[in-house]
């Protein structure tokens, strides 16, 4: 295993963490959008606000982290992807601005029209951001981004594989959020809300599963390289993902809310692992390897050592953050 492989693994860890944590925050925004207007949706919105309030910013940092890792470890691959996928990435950036700012703005204004406006902005951008990020992932996975030169700025991400991948991203985020929120509502003693999200977790889980399987046909049709990888070397991961997904549905049906968090997260994380396994050792295109695209060893070594030292601070801090807010029993009025 070379330094480039380690760097790629760290980058992928950040991407997985972003999907599992940050993605779930976006998914919560999707449920916020679907909660119904005004007073009807208020309990759902209050729970969402209460749960993601303290953690969304920390969860968001995984994305910044992944971007920085990408440009540091694989500079030209990053630059190629950014240049070619400028349209969806700009839309992601705008979505991130609106999601984050509208979320705090909504909390800071009294109930009324303005609160609703910020709410819609928050929720709509929570759906659009993962969608466009998904199209980016689809473009990267299906070899639409040429290495070292500008590709087709529209066709690279407006194609069946990218659109499927965008849809999957939205569904996966919503599914994760529903699973997490079911447990959160249970913990804070709001059984009605727990049932509400349990139903949504079951439905979105089934829909996500069906779409994922259907998507394999799209991938087989339009991205044969990726498909060969997925049914070849990555097959164990894909199968494991499907198994974890099925197990999650069973656990949800049995109301095992603690265990289902783990299996649902595993099902989602394994999709990303399967993608990575299907492509490895290639990056962006079949003629570019991870090794070729990697930065010089001196840079990789310095960055990885710094991150290892940083992790000593980071991991306990993260653990404290999550345990502090996951430990609470009955919901207290949010302070900010």
């Amino acid at each position, binding site marked *: 295993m070379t330094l480039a492989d380690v760097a790629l693994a760290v980058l992928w860890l950040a991407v997985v963490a972003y999907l599992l944590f940050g993605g779930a925050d976006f998914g919560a925004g999707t449920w916020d959008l679907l909660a119904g207007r005004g007073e009807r949706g208020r309990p759902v919105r209050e729970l969402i606000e209460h749960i993601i309030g303290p953690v969304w910013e920390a969860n968001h940092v995984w994305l910044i*982290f992944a971007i*920085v890792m990408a440009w540091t470890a694989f500079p030209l691959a990053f630059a190629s992807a950014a240049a070619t996928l400028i349209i969806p990435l700009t839309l992601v950036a705008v979505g991130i601005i609106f999601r984050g700012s509208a979320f705090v703005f909504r909390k800071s204004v009294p109930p009324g029209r303005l609160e609703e406006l910020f709410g819609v902005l928050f929720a709509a951008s929570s759906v659009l951001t993962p969608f466009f990020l998904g199209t980016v992932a689809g473009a990267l996975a299906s070899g639409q981004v040429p290495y070292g030169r500008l590709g087709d700025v529209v066709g690279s991400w407006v194609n069946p594989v990218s659109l499927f991948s965008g849809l999957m991203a939205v569904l996966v985020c919503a599914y994760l959020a529903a699973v997490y929120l079911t447990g959160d509502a249970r913990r804070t003693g709001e059984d009605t809300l727990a049932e509400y999200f349990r139903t949504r977790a079951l439905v979105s889980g089934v829909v996500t599963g069906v779409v994922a399987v259907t998507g394999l046909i799209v991938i087989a049709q339009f991205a044969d390289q990726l498909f060969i990888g997925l049914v070849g070397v990555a097959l164990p991961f894909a199968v494991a993902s499907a198994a974890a997904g099925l197990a999650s549905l069973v656990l949800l049906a049995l109301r095992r809310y603690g265990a289902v968090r783990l299996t649902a997260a595993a099902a989602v994380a394994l999709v990303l692992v399967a993608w990575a396994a299907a492509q490895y050792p290639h990056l962006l295109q079949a003629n570019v390897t991870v090794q070729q695209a990697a930065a*010089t060893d001196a840079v990789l070594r310095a960055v990885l050592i710094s991150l290892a030292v940083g992790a000593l601070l980071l991991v306990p801090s993260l653990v404290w953050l999550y345990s*502090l807010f996951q430990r609470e029993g009955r919901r207290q009025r949010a302070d900010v």
Partner: protein
Amino acid sequence: MTALGDLLAARMQMAMSLGWHIVLACLGVGFPALVLLAEWRGLRTRDETWTLIARRWAKALAVVFAVGAVSGTILSFEMGLLWPGLMGTYGEVIGLPFAIEGIAFFIEAIFLGIYLYAWGRLPPRAHLLAGLPIIVAGIASAFFVVTANAWMQTPVGFRVEDGRVVAASPWRAMFNPAMPHETVHMIVAALMVSGFLVACVYAVALLRGRRDVYHRRAFGLAFTLGAIAAPVQVVVGDVAARAVADLEPIKLAAMEALLRSEQGAPLQVGGVLSDGELRYALTIPHGLSLLVSGDPNSTVPGLETVPPVLRPPVMMVHWSFDIMVGLAFVLLGLSLWFAVAAWRRRALPASSWFYRLAVLAGPAAVVALECGWVVTEVGRQPWIVYGYLLTAHAVNPVAGLRLGFYGLIPVYVFLTIAAIYVLRRLARTPLPTGVAEHVADYRAVGGRS
């Protein structure tokens, strides 16, 4: 606007995003310190007014930090979207400080979440301590990001062959020659902006006759931060200017509008360029030579030492520099006024003229900040990595790049209006929980308040 080229549009987009973010980023460095100071004094003196100030500021901090976090994220996107030529080659050289900054920002976000939401859930002292990492990580973030910027001014620590970096020493790149003065200058600027900007809100209230202890203390604390930072900044700025003279002579020539190398160069303030000459400038003979090297007859290199295509836009850099310096001295004067009143009478200045000026001090600090940043970045043009890569060669070659800039303008307009509206609202709304309840919260969780 149809004539706007894609390169210029990309630069404008970067300038808009960065110029916007830099204000929030400064508040992200200095404002948490103010909140913690207020909370600390509240705990120490058992005075509820301080606690009330801390709690209200914490609400504003939540908004400022969130908007700062998202506007900063966009920048990391734009580095690639707009400047793939920079990132594709040199991304790895500046990767290390950004990676470390990532850690620092992570710590900041984590403890901010804890600090803002665990109020009443943690014992008071633990809560106060949970806020400290925000300050440390905030300053660290600023430091590491600025080291990367400093590298663009004085790039070292790499070797390029055929457009690829073949050898890099990332630590050397990070600790580049412009790093010391640029980072310190930026961090002190952040404290100045935070102090004067927060104080300006309360100066308005004091002028309107709300001279109660709450407003006096809030003003006094915030203004003190600005007043301490201002004289420091004047000294740091002087050191920085000498370092620029030494490391980036062309930038210095643009800052001082020194068109031709001169022995015993004059200091020229203001002025306009006409027919290749600077006219109507306030001129101090030998001033520049004296300031730069301590010798009134030393030679200072002028802009003619590089071909015209490699010169930065002189007037923009020169005027930005003069405005920054001018405002810095105005803020220094105001800080002295404040200090004299505090020392003589142990009270805030009485004159309403002081408060009128203090209202302007907030925007003035922001303008000085933006001008300083224009000096640094525009003064580096036409290079993006000085001496190695031209900005024009780094830009994304995609057609229609300008559309992104046009599209983002309304986003930033909306964001500005909404943020100001929400912050003003927060300043006016009474807090939902009284301080007495807040103290009771602490007792409920076992705090000794």
